[in-house]
Each structure stands twice: as C-alpha cells, then as structure tokens.
C-alpha cells in the first residue's frame, strides 16, 4: 500500500494547475456567451496527449489516476475545455480494447455518448458510443446544440457516420472509467468552490470581524471540505480499481460518483452561501462552480442513481 501521489503525480498536478490557472476567467467568457477559449485546451492536448494510455497503444503511458489528477485541477477552476471529454472517450475505447491511434492525432476531439445528450458536442470529431456492453467509434457528421446550464461544456445531439470500429464487449468497463474521471473532476469543482469561499471569508468583514471568525461560516466550509476530501479518496480508488480490474470496481465507481456529486454540489452551495449577497450575483464566481457541479453530477448518471445502484448491489448481490 502506498496510497499517496508519487512525485511524478505531484508534478503532474502542478503542471495541470498551471494550465488551468485561467479557468475561471475562461469560464466567465463562456458564461457571457463567448466560445471556449483556445487555451488551455491546445496546451492540454499538447502537453498531456496520450496520458493514461499505454505506450504500446501509442499513448504516453501513465494511469487513469494521472488523468484524474488533471481532471481535478480542471474542475477546480471550472476550466472550459473538451479535453476531459476526449479522455473519457479514449479511456472507454481502451477499456474495450479498441485501437485509439486516431484519437491521438492532432485535432481529434472525441466524445463519449451513452445514448442521451453528449457533452462537448460542439467540437466533437468522433464519438465513442456505448450501448449495453457494446462500443463503437464513429465520425460526427452533424451536431444539434442545446443550451447548457453550465456553459463551459456544450451539450448536444450528434448525427454519426458509419462506425470505423466496434467492440462487442468492454463498453460497460469503459463507461466505468469515464465515470471515475467525472467524479475526479467533481472533487476539483468542490474544492475550488471552497477555496474561493475561504478567500472571501478571510477578507469580508461584518460586525467588525472577518466573517471566517464565525463558526456559522467556518464550520460549513469545514464540513464541505470533509466531504470533498473523502470523495477524492473514492475517486482515486475508483480509478485504481477500474484500471486494475479489481473485484469491487463497479462498487467503487458508484461510491465515487455518489459522494463526489453530492460533495461538489454541497461545497458549491456552501461556498456560495458564505459569499452572502455578492455570491448570488451574476458577476461573482460562485455560480460558475454551482453550474458545473450540477451539470457534471448529471453527466453519465449522477449521485442519485449511483447511490441506488450501489445499495442494490450490496443488498441483493
């Protein structure tokens, strides 16, 4: 057992953190109607291309946990980028044993479709579709965009061409990998929301004191941090267990999805509340976290479904 980030993983987190630094500013751009900025997406695709994919498969090596580390940093600043969707799709394909070489070429923007609306549809070049345990990769011919609550991720319906490759099995395992990464991103969003609130609580004064002095304020942030930190353990383990094919992988993913979704929404809500009046204004950042947390909780099935699924497996399994 060595359940700590390696030095390489810490360096990776720092690199991702640097790239995601403009996230909130970029998120604001999309909120006000702008497109997803070109950076840091280009840098992410350049710097982390093939991360988490074996070198023998044309990847750069590394693990699903490495991807989770980057996803968390991107969530932490609500960074708008289709990079995470691309990784979800690649990982799903890898899990089904499908060649992802094409997905590693420059300009490739894969997305994952499990039947409903698709995230990051606006820039999608290919979709990895999963139906039951079947998986296919097909080019995107046309996109019908919907209006998303979280404007950092486009949402739409895709018209797809003929699949270039299909796999009869592995789709479910692929979706598990993807969900573990979504959970990781949610942990980042929860953490970022708390961090913004700490900034406010240590500056804002009422009754002659910075408001962080009041336990009514500080304890809700402590509670939120607790849930986010514990959810992060589940997300890390879900990544590890799915990649290792551990016996409890499905339960691990459900647990991570459940707690990460709840924790991120709770943290975003507490973070907003701590901001008081300013927190409910369009110009302040807290709603960026709240929109992301709610929207990502609905991505590939949220906390409600995961709780039910986990409980059902434990009670009837």
């Amino acid at each position: 057992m060595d359940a700590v980030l390696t030095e390489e993983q810490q360096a990776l987190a720092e690199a991702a953190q640097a790239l995601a630094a403009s996230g909130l500013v970029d998120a604001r751009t999309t909120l006000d109607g702008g497109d997803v900025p070109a950076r840091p997406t280009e840098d992410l695709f350049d710097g982390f291309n093939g991360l988490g994919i074996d070198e023998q498969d044309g990847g750069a090596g590394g693990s699903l946990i490495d991807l989770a580390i980057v996803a968390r940093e991107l969530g932490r600043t609500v960074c708008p980028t289709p990079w995470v969707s691309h990784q979800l799709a690649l990982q799903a394909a890898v899990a089904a044993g499908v060649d992802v070489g094409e997905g590693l070429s420059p300009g490739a923007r894969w997305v994952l479709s499990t039947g409903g609306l698709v995230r990051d549809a606006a820039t999608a070049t290919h979709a990895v579709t999963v139906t039951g345990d079947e998986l296919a990769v097909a080019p995107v011919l046309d996109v019908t965009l919907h209006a998303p609550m979280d404007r950092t991720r486009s949402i739409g319906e895709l018209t797809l061409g003929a699949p270039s490759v299909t796999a009869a099995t592995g789709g479910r395992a692929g979706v598990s990998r993807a969900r573990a990464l979504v959970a990781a991103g949610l942990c980042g969003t929860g953490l970022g929301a708390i961090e913004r609130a700490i900034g406010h609580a240590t500056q804002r004064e009422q009754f002659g004191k910075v408001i962080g002095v009041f336990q009514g304020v500080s304890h809700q942030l402590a509670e939120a941090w607790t849930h986010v930190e514990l959810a992060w353990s589940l997300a890390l383990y879900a990544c590890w267990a799915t990649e290792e094919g551990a016996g409890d992988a499905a339960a691990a993913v459900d647990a991570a999805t459940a707690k990460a979704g709840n924790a991120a929404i709770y943290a975003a809500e507490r973070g907003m509340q701590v901001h008081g009046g300013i927190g409910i204004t369009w110009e302040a950042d807290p709603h960026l976290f709240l929109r992301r947390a709610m929207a990502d909780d609905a991505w590939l099935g949220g906390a409600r479904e995961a709780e039910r699924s986990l409980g059902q497996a434990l009670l009837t399994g």
Partner: protein
Amino acid sequence: MDFRDTAEEAAFRKEAAGWIADTLTRVPHQHPADHAEKTVNSRWWQEQLAEGGWLGITWPKAYGGKELPIAYEGIFNAESARRHAPVGINMLGILLAGPTILVHGTQAQRDRYLPRILNGDDIWCQGFSEPGAGSDLAGLRSRAERVDGGWVVNGQKVWTSFAHAANRCMLLARTSTTEETGSKHKGITYFLADTDDIDVRPLVMINGDADFNEMFLDDVHVPEDRVLGELGDGWRVALTTLSFERGSLAFATSAEAEAALERLIVRVRDAGLADDADVQREIGRLAADVRSLSLTTMRQMSALSHGNAPGGDGSAVKLAWAQTMQAMTRLAVSLGGDAGVTTDAVDDAAWVSDFLRAKGNSVEGGTDEVQRSIIAERVLGLPRSR
C-alpha cells in the same frame, strides 16, 4: 385554535380569488421572459390593484384603507402567489413605507405620502443594505451632511428591489458618526428621499434576472421635512419597517412554496417516477416541510392579529422556507438528468432558473446564519454570538 377562515375571511378570500383569477386573464404577458416585461407586468398589476381597491387592506379608513386585520393582507397575498400573480410594482410602498409612515410620520408626512401610495403616484424602494453592511445592517456608512434647508447624502446602497421604477426611497444614512454616538445603532437617520438624483443600476443575479439594484448617492439633496421619526433615531424606525417585512409577506412566500411543490409533483409524474418509492419519500418529506411553512405562517398571522409582537417564528419560517425552496428546486433539476441541466425545454429552463434564484432565498431578507442567530438569541435566550 381554529384554522378555518371565519365567514368574513372566507368571503374576502372568495372575492379576492375571483378578482385575481379574473384579472390575471388580462395580464399583458403571462410568462414574461425578461426584466423589462416583468416591470411592465408589475406596473400594470399595481394599477389593477389600485382600481380594484385591493391596496391598503390593513390601512386606516381615514387614509383610504380597508382597516382589516393583517390576516386579510396575508390571505390576499397567498391567493395572489398561488396563482402566480405579478408582484405589484409598489409592493414596498404598500407593505413597508406606508405602515412605517403611519407609525412614525408627522401628520404632514402622512398626508403627503399615503394617498400617493394608494393611488399609484409614488413607487417606493428600500435603501437599507450597503455593500459593507449586509448581515450587519447597522454597520451602514452612507453619510448625510447638514446643509441649508436639509441634508446632502453620499453613499452606496445595494439589494434595492424596485429601485429602477421607484421615485421614493426609505433611506438610512448616518447623521452622526459611530465615534460621536458611541454606538453603531445611534446616529442613523431615516429619510423619505426622492430618487431623482440617485444613480440606479440593475444588479443581475445568477439566473440572469435583475430583481435587485445598486444605488449610488452622490451629493443627493434631501429637504428638511423628509426625516421620518427623530433625527438620529432611524435604527428604531428601521426596525419597525423590518418587522412589517416579516409580516404579511410570509403568506406569499409559503404560498410560493406550495406552488413550487405542485409543479414539482407534476415534474415527477411527467418523468414517470410517481411510483418510485425513493422519490415518493423525498416528496413526502418536502410536502411536510411546505405544509409546515403555511401553517406556521397562519399561526403567526393569527398571533399578530391578537396584537402579539412578531417573534422568532418569523425567522424560523424564513430559514426553513429557504431550505425547502432550495431542496425542491435541486430535486427538480436532478430528476431531469441530462435534460435537466439544459434550458431548451420551457420546464427545464424554468427549474434551472428557479434553482439558481432559490440560492438567493438563504441570503435575501437576512441570511440563514443571521436567522439562526436571531432564533438563538431572541427565542432561545442564548448569548449574542456576533
């Protein structure tokens, strides 16, 4: 202990409900999409209220009111909220400014302002909160300097509903510094100011609506005779206004919660989840909460009618109302799945907007934290914690 309307109340409720339903069929925009349209509706509704004689329900007959107990105001507001009626553009004049002037105003002030509230000539807003004085309202810093013939006020206000439409403002400003008076509650004066020279800017909320405004006061002149109550005694006058704020408005908020629950039930059914045991239990819990708000408001309103002072139950209702509104809207969005976090369909868009707007419920009118402190101190007798 009787929860039934008296014969008089029942008749009033029936008449009010009929008038509201009938008048709503003529509302210019049934689903206003933007703030400008909402303002149009609010103005129009105010006119209808004035014409229909539904203003000043609790006011003395001498000033054109109906002189009915506060429960009637509550009944009217509940029936309005239940039918999603617009909010009258001069709601604050009717519910706050008028009643406060009745308590603290001079005869001249009553004569000047009260008729203009009822006939719709004046629209009021409430200039209390400031960027640096939210939960700590008494920490306000707007300053009124004595000049010939009155005062000149400088400062900034925030969260002023209806300021974009108002021509009058319940304005708090310091006429003495805290250092001079030795207490932040002393030296505040309550002005009945005109808004002509106040710079008003809309404050856009996280759902895109602009329910509130900012007000910038730059050498705004207020004449001599616009002080309400004693000079420097404005905090006490403001407390009167705040006590009215928790009064008949509570009926409207609990009716709003009842209406949201109804819509939530429809959404659950539409999602095919009516037989889901888990959702059933969640709806049951929320329904109990919603019902408890309405019933507690009825108890509170009855107590007010008996002349009891408003107690901590107002804060309890406000606190639980915010939690319940947030829980209902969160559930509605969550049950929508992927579509729930988009705003293409009208219903999805409405719930996303309501979910975001409900976040304001735990801040506006006193944060959850302030309500808990009020309950702890005033009801439970625990020591002051701020």
